[in-house]
Every structure is written in C-alpha cells, then in structure tokens.
C-alpha cells in the first residue's frame, strides 16, 4: 500500500519545496493524475459533448457522463441524474436559491441558516428572503462552535421552508449535526440544504444518510481543478424546478415564443459544459478513494493536534472553536494579541508559509465572535509534521518582527 509520503510525491507544487502550504480550506493542491486526466481529455477526446453526432463528440459525452456517475456514487446519490455540474459551491447554492427558493418560499415563511455560514450559503438566502418577504432566521453556536438541539429546535418551526447549513464551518472547523438537523427540519416540513464545500474533501459523505435534499460541493477544495463543482438534488425536487440559466444545450424544443426544456440534469446545465474539469473531478475522487478517508482523517488529526499543541505554548495566541483537535476538520482559526492577521500573514509569507488572514467570507460570524478578522491555518493529508513545525517556529517569531520584545 502506498504511504502518505508516496502520495505527496504526486503534487509537484509541494515537491518544489518553495512553500509550506497551509491554506487548504481555501483551495487544495492537485496531484499529477488529475492534471493528466484533464490534459488527456483535451488531447484525446475533445469535442463539444452532448450535441455532436460523430464519434469524438460521443466519446466526450461518455467521459462527461461517466464523471457524473462517479460523483453520484461518491456522495451516495440514487442516480446520476441527481448530480448537476456547476462551477463551484457558490453556483450550486445559487441554483437552489433561484430555482427552488424563489418558487417555494412565500411571505412570512422562514429560511433558517446558521451565523457560521460562508457568505455563499448566506447571501443567496438573504436574496430569497428579501424577494419573497420571508424571514431569515439565524441559529447560533455555543463557544466551541456547536449548534445544540435546543438551538435548532427553537429556531426551526412550522414556518420554516428551507434549512441551509454548512456541513463543516470554514472558520470553526466544527462538523455540524446535519443528520439530526435534517430530521428535525423534515418533521417541520422544511427541506434541508447542505453546503458541503468543507466536508466533501475530508470525510465520507452519504447524502441519503445525512437527509440532505440538496448538497453542494466544490471540486477545487478536493484535488480537482478550479471551475468545476456539483450540486446533488433529490430527483423529485429537481424534476419540479425551473431552469436556473437558459440557453444552449438545455432545451427540448424551441419556437420563436417558447421553449420546452431538456430532462434533468441537462435542464440545469445551460451552455457548453466543463467536461474537461468534470473528468478531472472524477479523477480526484478516484485519487481520494485510493488514499482513503480513514487515512486522510488520521493524518489531519495528527497534524491538527501538533498544530494546536504548538499554539497553546504561545500565550498570546487565541484559538477559536473546540479545544479538541479531532473536531477541527484540519482547520485552525486564531488571533495573535497586538498583531493584525494581515501583518501576521505578510510576515509568514516572507518565510514562504501560506496561511489565510481576513474574514474568511464569514463576516457575520466574525461579528458574532467579536473579532474583525482572524488568521487560519488549514491542513490536508499531504501536509507533513515538518511543515507544521516550520509554521509554528516562524509564527513564534512574528511578534518580535512586529516590535514586541522577545
């Protein structure tokens, strides 16, 4: 069996030794196999999928539809038609908001989300709430990031039509109790939308087991190219929804005045599709399965433990979320007393250490935890203990650079 060191060799950008890359929650790196798969698609099978009547176009179509089946299998969808290819999680969630939300939410209804949501699972619902004159209700976590039973049972009422929650918070790293929230949402007659951008790269996902009616993911956070994402939608729901974008390739029949639409999933994939990157996503999934989610989790926990233990030794560092490294999904968000996160990130950049600093597209959460911005280090399975040690060593020197005595 291949070791983690062997897998790391597949990532040229990591092998260059130029960077310690700890911004995996923003985007992952890609292994050679994924880049080759995309390149091979264009070298050997490229034609416009889904419309040509010649062999090459049919080959492209076959690869694209195979990729759909791979994604369906990966997250436990009942059938490939339940997978719609999009650009990313943001587009997936907007599709649900526009095509399902605007049609099914009415004046006085509730849309329930959490204050931890990434803006991509917040702004589309703000839009729906405004247009439909509905209420946007926020569930709030405890200090360690937990949405308690009392919290979701008090916020999700019979008025709720949509409950939309991030599977894993991109700031706190906490995994939300989606299965329990979904069951409760369903009992109140609401549908469950899950933002899986931060979970799909790190854990086995089964949309049926979770009780998700919609589940959104981004390829670029899970070894695939930027610009390919997916939306899972329950077949019965997708079938009733109107298209999000209209135009080429999503039609059945068009006259001067009207059009009928293609069957799902193509009804939701207007225009020439991103087949090359869909093939890349399928290859990324194959790669992740080969590494195995048990191995991924084990390595992430080992690195997160090391990272959090190291931060504990710096009294001027405050870490957000749970004290248990196993509950961080590789994401550690923190502040340094007296030093703005942007200065921290700039000084670390000087040492070729890449971390994120800012509001992480979660401004209401920043307001909720009472900080303007934070720094975030996030690991993936290909990171090493040595890299975490380098990060801790460089971080321990930042305050000195910023003018605070040693």
């Amino acid at each position, binding site marked *: 069996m291949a070791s983690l060191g062997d897998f790391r060799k597949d990532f040229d950008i990591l092998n260059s030794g130029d960077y310690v890359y700890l911004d995996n929650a923003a985007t992952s790196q890609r292994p050679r196999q994924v880049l080759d798969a995309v390149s091979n698609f264009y070298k050997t099978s490229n034609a416009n999928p889904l419309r040509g009547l010649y062999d090459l176009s049919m080959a492209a179509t076959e690869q694209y539809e195979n990729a759909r089946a791979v994604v369906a299998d990966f997250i436990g969808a009942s059938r490939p038609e339940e997978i719609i290819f999009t650009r990313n999680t943001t587009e997936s969630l907007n599709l649900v908001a526009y095509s399902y939300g605007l049609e099914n939410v009415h004046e006085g209804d509730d849309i329930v989300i959490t204050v931890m949501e990434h803006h991509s699972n917040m702004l589309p619902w703000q839009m729906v709430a405004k247009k439909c004159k509905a209420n946007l209700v926020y569930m709030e976590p405890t200090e360690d990031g937990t949405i308690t039973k009392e919290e979701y049972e008090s916020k999700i009422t019979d008025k709720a039509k949509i409950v939309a929650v991030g599977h894993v918070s991109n700031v706190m790293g906490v995994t939300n109790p989606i299965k329990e929230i979904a069951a409760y949402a369903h009992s109140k007659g609401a549908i469950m939308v899950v933002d899986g951008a931060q979970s799909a790269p790190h854990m086995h996902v089964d949309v049926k087991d979770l009780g998700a009616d919609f589940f959104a993911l981004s390829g670029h956070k899970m070894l695939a190219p930027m610009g390919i994402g997916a939306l899972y939608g329950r077949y019965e729901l997708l079938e009733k929804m109107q298209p999000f974008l209209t135009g080429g390739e999503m039609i059945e029949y068009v006259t001067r005045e009207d059009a009928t639409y293609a069957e799902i999933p193509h009804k939701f994939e207007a225009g020439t599709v991103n087949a090359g990157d869909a093939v890349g996503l399928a290859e990324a999934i194959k790669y992740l399965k080969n590494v195995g989610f048990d191995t991924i989790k084990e390595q992430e926990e080992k690195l997160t433990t090391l990272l959090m233990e190291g931060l504990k030794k710096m009294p001027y560092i405050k870490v957000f979320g749970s004290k248990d490294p196993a509950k961080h999904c590789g994401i550690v968000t923190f502040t340094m007393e007296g030093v703005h996160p942007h200065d921290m990130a700039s*000084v670390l*950049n000087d040492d070729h250490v890449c971390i994120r600093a*800012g*509001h992480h597209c979660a401004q209401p959460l920043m307001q909720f935890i009472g900080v303007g911005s934070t720094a975030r280090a996030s690991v993936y399975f290909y990171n090493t203990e040595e890299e975490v040690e380098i990060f801790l060593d460089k971080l321990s020197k930042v305050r000195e650079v910023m003018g605070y005595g040693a």
Partner: protein
Amino acid sequence: MELKQLYREIVNEHNLHPVHKGKMENPDLVLRGVNPSCGDDITLQLKLKDGVIEDGMYDGSGCAISQASVDMMVDQIIGKKKEEAIKLAGTFMGMIKGDITDEASLEELDEAAALQDVAHMPARVKCAVLGWHTMQEMLENPEKAQNS
C-alpha cells in the same frame, strides 16, 4: 527594503506609538475609510482654517501598515494647504502604484516615502493608501465629510 525590515524600522514605531491617533474635539471634516476585504477601518478628522489644515487626527483599527501609513500622513499634512495635501496624496498613490519613482517627488513625502516598497507587495497596497485615499476624498468632496 524587505518586509521585515520595513516593519522593524518604520512601521512598528508608528503603529505601536502613534502620534496622531485619537478622537478630536469639534473637527471641521470627518470621514470614515474602510477596506472591506481586510477590515482596516479608520475615521479621519481634520480642522481647517483659511484653506490650511490646522490639525489632524485619526481613530480606528487595522493592520500595522494601514495604521502607520495614516499616522505618517497626518504628520505630513498638518500645516499644509488643502491643495498641497491633495497633491501629496496623488504623489503617494503614484509611488505605491510604482508610477512615481523620482527622488525629488518622493522627497516631498518625507517619512511616508519609506513605504515605497509596498509597491512590490500587491496584497498590502490597499492598506498603505487607505489614509491617503480618505484624506483626498474628504478634501475634494467636503460635502461628504461634514461633521454632524
């Protein structure tokens, strides 16, 4: 100048021991400047008499570069005519964009010229120009900056 040197030799002093930070009594012009993407947030306050900046202060929070830059700026513009301050803002922003590099122009910026190397740090450009941009905006459009 390298980043760490820039912090150690210029930025830290103004960031940790600002001269012009605080709230001013009865300013003539007040304008808030924000970098939404990073959370730098300053409120610039000026007193003007006969077209001359009599006094200036800023309040707020942000990264060291944004705070040090505005502190140095206020130092520069006190005692200057409104038009001179606006021209200076143009020079500073030109320097940060890398368009203005000649010694004579940079000399007018005095200590603020030390931030010249931010031109090579694209991620920090907005931090360095926040104060200058806010000052230019309030002097050119005083109706937006009336103290209410």
